[in-house]
């Protein structure tokens, strides 16, 4: 009886450990680098990838341009983002499953000059779009805008 419960406990522990330690399900592509000029990279899980045309992007990616760099990103819902030189954004959260009503676009702009044109996520559920800056959050009702973050 006691042995059974110990084994059951062990199994449960192993199961829970396994669940916790299981690698996150393969990161889904959220879009890709449509164009890139000059120095630019994508930082993913501690690795730095050259931001070349066609590079698929996933949630959590940090996209960064050098002083001569420009990068254009096309997301699967047709949201479009442009980074000027010395700019940095992070794809915090991206969900585009309209059939399941699962929508999210959270982009953090850390520095530089960044342009945005809304896609289907903003058209279907504008409340799911958030563009975060160091001084506040941009809420989008379906449109284009630009953000510049400069030194004081």
């Amino acid at each position, binding site marked *: 009886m006691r042995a059974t419960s110990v084994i059951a406990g062990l199994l449960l522990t192993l199961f829970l450990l396994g669940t916790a330690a299981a690698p996150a399900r393969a990161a889904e592509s959220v879009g890709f680098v449509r164009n890139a000029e000059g120095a630019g990279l994508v930082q993913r899980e501690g690795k730095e990838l050259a931001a070349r045309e066609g590079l698929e992007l996933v949630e959590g990616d940090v996209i960064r341009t050098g002083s001569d760099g420009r990068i254009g990103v096309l997301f699967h819902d047709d949201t479009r983002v442009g980074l000027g030189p010395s700019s940095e954004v992070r794809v915090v959260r991206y969900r585009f499953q309209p059939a399941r009503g699962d929508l999210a676009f959270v982009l953090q702009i850390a520095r530089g000059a960044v342009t945005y044109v809304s896609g289907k996520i903003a058209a279907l559920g504008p409340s799911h779009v958030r563009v975060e800056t160091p001084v506040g959050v941009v*809420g989008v009702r379906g449109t284009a805008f*630009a953000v510049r973050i400069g030194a004081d």
Partner: protein
Amino acid sequence: MRAPSWAWLAGFGLLPYALYGCASAPPPPPPPPPVSAGVVVVVVLLPDDAGQVGRITLSNPQGTQELSRAGEAVRVSTPEPWHSSQGASRSRSISAPAAPFAMDSEYITRVFGAALAARPGPPARFVLYFEGESDRLTAESQQRLAEVARSVVERRALAVSIVGHTDTVGTREYNFQLGLRRARRVQEAIRAQPVDQSIVRVDSHGKDDLLVQTADNVPEPRNRRVEVTVR
């Protein structure tokens, strides 16, 4: 999903140091200007490609400003950046977004010219139609096929999606296969082009994605189509 995102946000100010501080091999890369040194953020509303102007808001715990005209901008400066995940208590040093002002187009071009040029253009879309319960293009759509193929080449496309659709006549399985045959018909036109064929994705939504809603078993020419998106 929320927790890691929040944790990252909390450590946001430290990130540049975490990234650049651990490089040991000389010469050390120059650190970027620390984000926490105080920043000015300018947000400006722009027309989209079609010339439409929407509406955006800039909000922080001290206030909200709404922009609704092209070229309208709002500026906020702060000695210490704040992120929404930190809650309102850490936001005292940030002022409320000031009243919007009109930003002249020369300034927009100077500051955002490169970021605007970097922004990809909108994808090209084509809808091609088919005769009856067949994979034969209508005469008009047959003519447009060359235009689709040309677009893939001229745009130097990185992704092409070809999705076949049908009306509601017949079973789901039958229509799935019919939609697939239609999509492959269009794919043939691109196959003749000098482009990397691995960028082309062919799919069928059968009768599950109607352009015009109808009851089951209703012939509807506008639903017998292939939608092509060139990105």
